[in-house]
């Protein structure tokens, strides 16, 4: 970076800033990761061990108390043997992958068309697409629930897949359009001059957009997997997904904290890996393509 080339003199102020920066980053790192760490550790703690706390203000005992436990995987066993989490995991997978696949395939086709074609109401079409994506889920779910009741889609996986498509499809169209915009039309033109049909020309540019399409497929899976409102209303009954099932474990009496934390780990860990996998596209994806790294 160019700024490195500016000569910087060591001054007390600069040293102080350096120390402050390290302290701040360390503090933020702890603040950011501590809840996740407590979740992981609590999921392998025995019920009574998870409830242990030092006395208020007793800082010295905090860390020994926290690590005073014998690891057990009983909660994970409980989830998958007694609580049917295998089924919920499968539901989550089918709903998320199904809606992501539909959204990305149809979305890529539409994005390609939108990117190559100029027509009169294009701007309005665009605004409609993005406002569908931005609409609050709570507001969308009211009419959707009423309609799905009539169609007997409440509590079924197809219903859930359609519900997830309401936010994944506009997302896919919007973000992939930006992707196709960056592919020069000249490549297709050249292919067509060589005798390719339109479809074959499209196949020529597919390798260029494939990484992005793949990344946004993963991102669509992530959005759908992490949804709770649709899962709890549209999926209630026959199509319980992991987040809804985890929420279901929280009951006024007899809260099984160990199992809940284990369910949290089961729901979160796969998404963390997916997040790492598409790290490069994450900023573009989360800002609707407005900012790129």
């Amino acid at each position, binding site marked *: 970076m*160019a*700024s490195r080339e*500016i000569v910087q003199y060591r001054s007390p102020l600069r040293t102080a800033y350096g120390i402050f920066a390290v302290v*701040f*980053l360390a503090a933020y*790192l702890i*603040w*950011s*990761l501590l*809840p*996740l760490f407590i*979740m992981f550790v609590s999921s392998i703690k025995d019920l009574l061990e998870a409830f*242990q*706390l030092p006395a*208020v*203000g007793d800082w010295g005992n*905090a860390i020994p108390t*926290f690590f005073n436990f014998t690891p057990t995987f009983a909660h994970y066993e409980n989830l998958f043997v007694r609580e049917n989490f295998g089924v919920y995991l499968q539901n989550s997978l089918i709903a998320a992958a199904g809606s992501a696949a539909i959204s990305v395939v149809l*979305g890529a*086709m*539409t994005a390609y*068309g939108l*990117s*190559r*074609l100029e027509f009169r109401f294009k701007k309005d079409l*665009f*605004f409609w697409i*993005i*406002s569908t994506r*931005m*609409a*609050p889920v*709570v*507001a*969308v*779910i009211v*009419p*959707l629930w*009423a*309609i799905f009741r009539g169609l007997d889609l409440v509590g079924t996986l197809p219903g859930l897949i359609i519900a997830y*498509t309401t936010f994944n*499809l506009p997302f896919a169209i919007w973000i992939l359009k930006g992707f196709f915009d960056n592919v*020069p039309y000249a490549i297709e*033109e050249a292919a067509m001059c060589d005798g390719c049909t339109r*479809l074959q020309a499209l196949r020529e540019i597919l390798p260029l957009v494939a990484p992005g399409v793949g990344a946004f497929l993963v991102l669509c899976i992530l959005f759908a997997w*992490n949804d*709770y409102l649709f899962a709890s209303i549209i999926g209630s009954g026959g199509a319980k997904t992991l*987040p*809804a099932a*985890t929420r279901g474990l*929280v009951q006024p009496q007899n809260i099984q904290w160990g199992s*809940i934390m284990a369910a949290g780990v089961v729901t979160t860990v796969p998404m963390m890996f*997916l*997040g790492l996998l598409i*790290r490069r596209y994450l900023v573009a994806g*989360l800002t*609707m393509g*407005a*900012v790129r*790294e």
Partner: protein
Amino acid sequence: MSAVTDAGEFAGALADRPAERGADWGAFTVTHEPATFNRPWSNRFYWVMMLPAIILLACISLYPFFWLIYMSLHSVGEMGQIEGWNDFRNYTRLINDKEFLNGWWLLIKYSAMCMVLEVIIGVFLAVVLNGSRFEKVLVTLFLMPMMMAPVIAGTVWYFLYNGTFGWYHWLFQSLGILDAKSILGDPSTAMFGIVLVDVWQWTPLITLITLAGLKRVPQDQAEANLVDGAGPVKNFLQITLPNLYPFLLIAILLRFMDNFRFIDAILVLTGGGPADATKILPVYLFDVTFSFFKLDRGSAIAFTLLLVTIILGLLLVRVFEDPSQKRAATAAGA
């Protein structure tokens, strides 16, 4: 890039000049005509590609939207059956609905609190991170909370806040910020409780966007300013911040929309309580519709919420499409 080319016209023009057929073109002689000339390029191909998604989207977004308006103008039974026109009662009742007005006020308060904290911490974090040795690793670690389902985040924090065995409850008490009351159980602190969860989960997004912005601050401007005698703080205020502006605008608008969109964590943490202290509008809407099954009133509330979101969306699109800001935000983008 436009798909409209003049290849069709070109072929047509060629066909119109029979005199040149069979002419000697120098390198080779055209002896016979092609069987057909290329057809003029039609746009039908693109429309065929676009149609399935547009039809599907119309079915799952436009149709429900009109259904929502229709429901909001009628009396609707618990199962969604229409029971008749009711002279805009769903809307007129909203004006006197204290919880509705309070919901808007709380939503604005909640969003504003989240925004201020997230922007301050996020920008600061980005500035400290930028160019530091472990930038890549740290950013990846900071990202982790964002990958979590909001409802799971809410559940974990519900556990951390618990008044008898929650570690954060203990932490806050030990620090002397909190007395014996539980954070979520007290109307005066519950709002801070839910704001903190949002800040924990989404500050990294602001940091990421700001980092992307910081990489595009023109270094020549910064250097010139430093040569002119500006200190680092002055330099930040005069050069970095104005260049960051489009990025921050995008970040703020996106977070605003997400605060409207996601109530998952709040539903777990407080469910709108205690004493409606955290019943922001989307939570109230959820309550009306899916706890009391008043679908008609719910539709009217949902419509007002959608209207505000659409206005925010218009603002966002304008920022996206503004050429100067678009250039700033996506320059050098892959």
